[in-house]
């Protein structure tokens, strides 16, 4: 059980405002780490710093002990780090299957083989399997933009898993998803974690979702780590209760 991700002393300021103020944590192989905290505590900014969307003002990010700070999102993704966004991010004009093929096509072959090779990059079968796994089978050929919100959310998650990533960062996967689909989603995430050994980091506001899914929870407040531990430990921590009720 090695550390997949090691984040040390990340700082990020916008103008004068310190959004992230010295956050360090590690993620072990195969675990599901939850990150919670009140609005504006710097969760999303932290994600964006880890994933190369933003350049941290200070600090470093290591993947399997290798320095990846400031690496571009596409490069990181091809190293096996995948993500979803807080807001829905599917390609509305492409079909469900095309969305998934896109999510996988850059992970195999070269630019030349992607030009001269097969149109689906040999990924149709894999895409359909993934679609089936996320229970979107009846919608394979539908335009992603025409799906319901919950279905798009599932597709969004499916895209993050298409290339078989080692580490997946999910930004509020449960936001806006109804109860039935929430159960589905949780079940899918658990299955992928168990079967493929993928490691997860999940930002979430839905406490029930986090507490029942995650093996370990990190609490952020005002850009810093406030507490860390198992779901039960965190729930009982008076500082955490204070931070949430104080807001």
């Amino acid at each position, binding site marked *: 059980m090695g550390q997949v991700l090691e984040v040390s002393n990340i700082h990020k300021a*916008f103008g004068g405002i310190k959004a992230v103020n010295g956050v360090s944590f590690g993620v072990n192989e195969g675990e599901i780490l939850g990150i919670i905290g009140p609005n504006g505590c710097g969760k*999303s900014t932290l994600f*964006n710093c880890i994933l190369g*969307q*933003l*350049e941290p003002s200070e600090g470093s990010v290591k993947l399997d002990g290798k320095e990846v700070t400031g690496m571009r999102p596409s490069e990181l993704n091809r190293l096996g780090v995948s993500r979803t*966004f807080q807001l829905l991010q599917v390609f509305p004009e492409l079909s469900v299957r095309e969305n998934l093929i896109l999510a996988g096509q850059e992970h195999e072959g070269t630019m030349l083989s992607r030009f001269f090779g097969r149109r689906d990059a040999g990924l149709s079968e894999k895409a359909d399997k993934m679609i089936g796994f996320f229970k979107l089978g009846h919608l394979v050929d539908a335009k992603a933009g025409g799906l319901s919100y919950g279905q798009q959310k599932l597709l969004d998650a499916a895209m993050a898993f298409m290339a078989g990533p080692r580490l997946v960062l999910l930004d509020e996967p449960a936001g806006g998803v109804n109860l039935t689909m929430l159960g589905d989603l949780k079940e899918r995430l658990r299955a992928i974690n168990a079967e493929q050994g993928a490691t997860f980091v999940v930002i979430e506001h839905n406490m029930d979702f986090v507490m029942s899914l995650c093996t370990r929870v990190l609490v952020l407040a005002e850009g810093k780590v406030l507490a860390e531990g198992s779901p039960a430990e965190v729930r009982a921590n008076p500082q955490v209760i204070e931070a949430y009720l104080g807001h």
Partner: protein
Amino acid sequence: MAEFIAYLIAGIATGAIYALAAIGFTLVWQTSQTINFAQGEFVMLPAVLVLLAIKLFGAPIWLGALIGIAAFILIFGAGFKLAVVDPMIRHGVLPLAIATMALSIIMKEGAKDAFSAEAQNFPSFVPTETISVLGASISLQHVAIIIVAFAVIGLLQWFVGSTRLGRQMQATAQNPTVARILGIPVERMVLLTFVINAALAVVASVLISPIYLAKFSNGEVIGLFAFIAAIVGGFNQVRGALVGGLLVGIVDSLAAAYISASYRLAVPLILLVVIILLKPEGLMGRKEERRV
């Protein structure tokens, strides 16, 4: 040295014109995400309309000016916003930008067909004489342009900074969503920026046309330089547009005098490319973070 001062004054004068156009460009961009590729034609057309009104109605100059200017502000201030921007913006920024290109073609060709393909004299409101200051001969027209343009920009700054209406407009430019929550009539404020843009174009047109004459193709260079001025100064800053405009004007004037008359256009273009390479957020702009 005397020569240099004369070129400098001339540069500041044309720069002030570019600044007027660039400020309007920036205002419209801020409040409605409209990149107006017809901005140069906006400066070209008022002078043409004034002359057209004089020609068509046989009106005296003051009446012609009034008709031409009123028609322009109505059509290309309010009309532009209501007939082009509003129905188009829902399709996104790109179709709207292309629509303004179409508009620029319509304005240019329209001016050519309805008015004249040749340059026409435009009456000047100051004598076309030069005065001698410290051995440099300075055109009174240039001095007048600088005075009027700066007065107008000063007035605009005062309006935006010190009046209730102006502050509401500024709030709308900075964050329409919050402005709406605060009860500011956002739609009306956006319309107001379009009217101000048209008014600034009128001022620029009336100031520059006695020197450049009124011609359908005048907008090409003015538009290009206003564009460059806005980017060089910092794409979303009125202050930046002013600095950018003056800088482009001075660089242009000095380049024409000391480098090459046939490549005078190229120097501001190179300035643009250098700025994009070294300080892409513009001289006065603040760095924008990559956002998700």
